[in-house]
Every structure is written in C-alpha cells, then in structure tokens.
C-alpha cells in the first residue's frame, strides 16, 4: 500500500492505496464520488474524464498514486446539492443536452476545460474539441447547443415553462 495526499474537489485528502488502484476506482470506491463513470476502461469513451491540475484526464488510465500531491476535480465539484446548477450544467438542462446521463459527468468536465482554454469556439470547433467524449443517446446536436450556449451565451432553446 502507498500513502497519497491530494486535493479532491478542493478538500485535502490522504489515503492508503494499492499502487495498482486506478484513479477512477479510488474516486468511486475510496471516496464514494460515484459521479465519475467508467465506460470502457481503455481510455476511449471519455465517461471517466476528470480534471487533474485543471487539465482533463481519463481517470481510468491513471493510477491513484499518480494523483499524489495534485488537485483533482470531478463532476461533484461543479455544484453542491441544494445550490443552483453550474452554468454549464444549466445549459445542458436547458438545451436537453443529456438523456441517460452516463456520459454526462465526463462531458461536463471536458466542457469546463474547453471554457477555460478556448471559450470562443463555434459549433464545428466544439465538435472537434469534444470528440473524445462519446455519447450514445443524444446524437450530439443538443449537446452542441448546450455548449454553445454555455460558452457564448447564445440563446439556445428556452423552455416554455
């Protein structure tokens, strides 16, 4: 077992982990942060995307010990229960940017990174930037609407009520 000390969603955390434990498993099983989902375990689908020191990372391709002394942010960092949704989450809700919700947490973290690094994207660029997050439900159109709205304040479709 190895001792690691890291910051997760702003909180300092210390833990004993088996050196082979994946970061995704550590977050889900060790810290009960089950918002991070595991879809393929080979780094393709993007469902497990988290931010490590602000940059997106596949938590299924990273060991927990590699996160030692680093800062990890998961979907649970975006808003806490009781508080309002983060503007990116709100845009996804307003534009119907999710269906089953399984790919959503990873996608949201990729959008957080995109908003920080390249906030002036158009629709085609959004599609290129987010092509590492597979969604099987939405056909992507409403996701692009949501991201466009979140990044640029472009009014997507507002609800009737």
């Amino acid at each position, binding site marked *: 077992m190895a001792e690691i000390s890291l910051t997760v969603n702003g909180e300092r955390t210390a833990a004993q982990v088996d050196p082979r434990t994946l970061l995704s498993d550590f977050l889900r099983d060790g810290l009960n942060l089950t918002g991070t989902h595991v879809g393929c375990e080979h780094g393709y689908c993007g469902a497990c995307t988290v931010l490590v020191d602000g940059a997106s990372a596949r938590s299924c391709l990273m060991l927990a010990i590699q996160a030692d002394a680093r800062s990890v942010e998961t979907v649970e960092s975006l808003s806490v229960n009781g508080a309002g949704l983060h503007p990116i989450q709100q845009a996804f809700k307003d534009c119907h940017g999710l269906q089953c919700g399984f790919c959503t*947490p990873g996608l949201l973290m990729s959008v957080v990174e995109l908003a920080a690094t390249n906030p002036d994207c158009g629709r085609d660029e959004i599609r290129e930037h987010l092509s590492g997050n597979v969604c099987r439900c939405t056909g992507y159109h*409403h996701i692009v609407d949501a991201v466009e709205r979140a990044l640029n304040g472009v009014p997507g479709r507002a609800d009737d009520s």
Partner: protein
Amino acid sequence: MTADQAPRYFGARVSRRQDDRLLRGAGRYVADINPAGVLAAKFVRSHQAHASVTSIDIDAAGASEGVRTVFVGGDFADHEIRCVSSYAAFQESAQPILAVDRVRHVGEALAMVVAEDEYLAEDASELVVADLEPLPAAVDIDAALDVGCAPLHPGWRHNAFVRRQVKTYGFDDASSSAPHRVSIELHNGRHSGIPMENRACVAEHDPGTGQFRLHTTTQIPHLVRAGLSWALGVPESLIQVIAPDVGGGFGVKAQLYREEVACCLAARQLGRPVKWVEDRREHFVAAHHSREHRHKVTGYFDDEGTILALEADIAVDMGAYSVFPWTATMDGGMAMGILPGPYRIREYSVASTSVCTNKTPYGAYRGVARPAACFSIERLMDQIARHLGVDRVEIRNRNLLTGGDYPWRSPSGLVYDSGSLIESLEAVVDLADLEGLLKCQADARAAGRLVGVGLAVFTEQTAHTTQEFKQRGVPIVFGYETAKVRLDASGTAVVSASIHDHGQGLETTLAQIAADRLGLALEQVRVTYGDTEQVAYGAGTFASRSAVLAGGAVTKAADAVADTLREVAAHILEAAPEDMVVESGRVSVAGSPSRFIETSELCRLIYQRPERLPEGVEPHLEASRTYDAHPGTGAYTNAAHLASVEIDPLTGKTRVLSYAVVEDCGPMINPTIVEGQIFGGVAQGIGTALFEEFLYDEAGQPLSTTFADYLVPVMSDIPDFRVAHLQTPSPHTIGGLKGMGEGGAIAPGAVIASAVEDALSHLGAVIVDRLPLTPERVLGYIDAANSSGASA
C-alpha cells in the same frame, strides 16, 4: 373521464425532471450500489468459437488471495435459459449458465470467480485453465446452413432455429405477368446498441425469507423477474428486480442474461451479495449482438414504376442461442412483416431463416429488423427508379400509401392505422432544400468532388401489443403496461410505472400527463419506475411503446383518482360529482369557481378525516390501471429522411454534410424530448451506415473488441440536424399518441447508401448493397463505378 381544462403540460417543451440529479453526478447506477459484505464476480470466458470443454482447472484460482469460490458449469447445471417459440419446427437451444461440456461462441462464460474485490477476482480469473478441444466453427450464414455442417445443438436436424415462408394468393400471377423486375442482394453488418454503461448486476439473497433482490441494468425488470423465476425455479413473489438509473439500453439491455442468473445463484450459495460489473471487452463479446441480415429482394413493376409484387429471401445470423424473452425468431419475423414498408404493395412472397452460428447470441437493437427492411425496400425503390429513368422522389410518390388507403392491411398482415407519407416526403424535400443540395452537387462534380444526396421514407409499427405479439410465437405476449397513481395526504402524486426510463425522458413525460389529469403542477408529481415491487406486472421499455402504453395507463389511473376527488369534493361542497372540475390545484363547482376546495386539503381530509367522506367511499386515493392499445396491431409513425454526403476519392471516407428529418408521431407530449430521440436515433443510424461492425475471422475469433476496432460516431462525425414534425393522431390510442423511440435509427443506412450511390452515379453504374460503408468498401464501389463507366 376527461381532463377538465386544456392541457397545461401536454405538448410543452418542459425541461426534464431527472436532469438535476444526473447533471450533479448524483444518479444512482448499478455500479454505484455496494451492499454491506458485497463480493465481486469475474467471469472466465471462452477464447474458442466452438469447442468441447475437456477440463477446467480451478485449483490455483481457488487458492488465490481473497477468493471465496470459483464456480464452473457443473455447479449450476440444474439451471439454464430457454426461450422457445411456438412456431412449428422451431429448434430449441438451452443456454447453460456456465458452459458444461461445450462452448458455442467466443465470450461464453466457462467459470465464475467470486472474490473480496474486483481486482482480486480478476487476478484469480487469470489462473483458471480451461482445456478446450476445438471443433469446426460455423461463422456465417452459408457455412452454418451447409449440409456438411454439423448441427450446433443436440438433436437438431440443421442449423436453422426456424424457417418460415408466406406467399399471397395472387403473387405468382402478378410476378409472372409483370413487365419489369429488379433483383438485389443486401448485407447489413453485425453490430449493436453499445450503451455507454456496460451491463452490471448486484444479487442479494435473504436466507431467512428466501427472497432474492437483483439490482440490474435492464429495460425490462418484470420480464427479467419472469425469466429468473423460470431459471432459478423460484416463484416470482420471492424475486425483486430493481433497475435504478440505467446508462442507455437501445435493446441490448432488454434481455435476461446468464450473468444475472449466475449472480443470484452465487449470492444464495455464499450468503453474501454478489456484484458483477462488465468491462467493455466483455460487452463486445458477451452482450447480445444485432442487425446482421442478408436480404435477397426482387421487385416486379410496370412501365410507370408501380410495384406489382415483391419477393424476399431473408436470413439473419442469430448467433449461438435463442435469447429470452424474444426467441431467435424476432428479427426474421419482424423483417418479413415490415419489408413492404410504406408502399401500396399487394402481392408478396417471403421466406425467412433464423440461422444458428458460433457467434455471440443476437438480441434487440433499436428498430429491430426495421433498419434492414428499410435498407432493402428503399434500395430497391432507388434501383427501380434508375431502371426506368424516373426521379427517386417521383418513384416513391407513385407507390406510397395515401390518406385514403388507411387503414391499410399490408400483404404481410400488418394493419397500418394512419400516416402522412407523401406529405412527409414533400416536407423533407423543402426542409433539406433538395434543390439547393442538387445545385451544390453539380458545382462539386464540376470541381471533381464526389457529393451525393440520399433519401428514404418509412413507416414504423409502434406500441403494438397483444394482437401482434401473439402472432410472433413468443412465450410471453407483451400486451400492456401498468401504471399506479397515488395522491398522498399532502396533495402530491406518485406515479409508478412498469416501463423504464434510461434516457427517453419518461420520468418527465409521464409526469406531464399525470399533472394535467390531476390538475397539479408538474413539480407535484413524482414518477418512479424500475422496481417490480411498485406495480403488479408489465413488459418494460422497448419497441417504441412506453409513451403510448404507459402514458395511456397513467391517464386511466389518474382519471380514476380524479373521480374519487370529484366524488368527495361534491359531497363536501354539496354539489353533483359530474359538476366538479379538477384543475389548478383545486376542485371546484363548474360555473361557480368560488365554490372550491384545495386539492391538497381534500387529500388531507380523505386520508386523515374519514368521517367527512360520503358513505361507501374508501379513504384511498390510489388506482392501478393497465393499458393495451386496442386492437393491438400498433400505431404507425412515419418519417422521411434526406441527407447529403461527400466522399474523399483518395481514402473512401464518407462524411455526412447535412441531415434532415420530417417525422409524424402524432401528438407530441414534449417536442424537445421527441427531437432528442430522433437525433440520437439518427446518429446511431449513421453508425450503422458508416462505422459499426463486429467482424470475425474464419475461425470465429472476434476482431472488434475495443473502441479502436469497433468505431462509434463521435461528435465530429455527426452534422447538425434539421427536423420538422407532422402530427397525424392514431385512431387507436389514448390521446392519439404514437411511439417514436426507434424511428431515427431506422432510415440512415438506406439514406446514406442512397447518397453514396448518387455521389458515384456520374462515374458509372454501381449498386451500394452493403453496410457499413467503411472507407475500404467505398473505395471498392468507386473502382466498380469507374470500371462500369469505362466499359459502358
């Protein structure tokens, strides 16, 4: 029994009830569930397509750290999954829970390691040594049906689960006298729904009560319970199946799987909960496959292109076993039924063979056989148009059913209730700006580029129930869905339903219906589903049925509860029940809006002040109703799709430039959700058309076991969509609703094949007859077109 005011929520683009929790990462999926003392299961799977199991050495695995037990086939030999069709001459297969003496596909489970955690279980699974003696593998339709191929199951005569044949009386005359005929052979690649969440289950067994509880990733909790009851030999009252949040289904999660049975048996034997979470490689080889059809079709037609008769020979590669609850006949039967499609075809001859091979078993995927059927009939229409030199839109207009044709009895016996086929085709031509696209195509061609336009029209049977499924020979007739509506003492409602929501938004749309019927605000209605303890029975979510059937059941149950509100309110307000109006959170006297009682106060009185109730009324605001959309032959949605593509002549890569859909699913409960379903379906259909295929080598080894080999569409592969709606109500269903969950996925294969063929049409004649249109295949079509053009 009708809502008392114009609907407030039906038809509105309200945002979804479940989104907040899913967006916060607070959804609860099966992999998130960890009961105290839970053990982890890992399955050891066959690496051979077909082999005798000589021996399985589990000693080293059993001694590995943290291992509780290693199960092999003999441990579960008293259990199996059978799904027997009532069709004459159907040959039965029995799926063992773990292979006993034979494996019939790569990925079939041989052993189950149960350990303290997933890492230890996986370590031990690598120590299991299975000695397999290879047998010749039947890996395609022709090889399996060859008379020299040994039958794959004991007692079988040949490798067809079933063969069926139907011919109309007038077919021979109509076909033999037709002045023209065109024949084509079409191939659809093997692929499946690939939900982003793999399968998973957690089984618990209470030795005191004998009760099983299974959390599982399923679309059909009641049917899983029924299948488990048979496989375990335990009455349904001792089995609770719960499907919590499920990360996509698309049909692949609408079956009973062997792993579910194995986890229940292991939990009972070990006295601790047993959890299995599938990994993606397992999903590619062990979750059910779909879509692999081969159709030989011939159209007989006159000089105007009017179809006089249709002939089809259908073969479907169903893999190694008949799956529960569908049997191995589902795709073949569905294709036989729907192949004539939206056209005025009266004479039809069709044969269908469901073939058993050494591949992963075959189950449902969004559209079930309809994508292949649409591909066949629409490819045929394009060839007829080309044969006669008629425009592709025009040839369809000459054959499509029109308003006066309904109800239309198809030559396969389906009864189409209503539709707007010609209108939808006309609308999609406008929506997509076909004229503009053709101008762009001409410009692109002049510049040496390969640009094409394709289209397809289809009709989709949805929400079919008793009448349809009793003809399909399935052991359980999926006739109805159930909903229970309860108003509590606070005046808020809980709606429980036998369907499941794994992305379709039913948690919201059913609330919209209930809120309208009960005169409540949307926020006052909570919808639950997925737990067999909540409602008595039902089938689940598949076959585009849930909004129609669960929506109808919710309407009936909510109206029954509203009737009780009226009766009690009338007693309290000293008025007649028939004069009571339930709306906007109150029950009032019609014409005297000042005489009212708040619904919440009325609910409180009914539960807490029984002395205020009229005689004979129970202190109870709950109703459970089933709904079977009589006559059970289905509500027919229709749509027209039109797309443009560009092909890179050097690489053969096809890019979808634009995609437009006009869909008519009758009145829409929530148009935004309808559009989301259409877009999602079309993107999956683009995967069908261009990317997705489970390939096998000659020995039956799967070649597509990672996302690097099996390509799914990513965001940059998919264009923006254009969508428009027509709304022709069904004459059969409550509210005129029609289903639409599958429709988007049905046409894209046909549309894109049509577009690719069109992109090459100036080079020479070629028939695009095989999906998916991978770059390699498209290069082949380019070569063929060039050769044909050069020799012409």
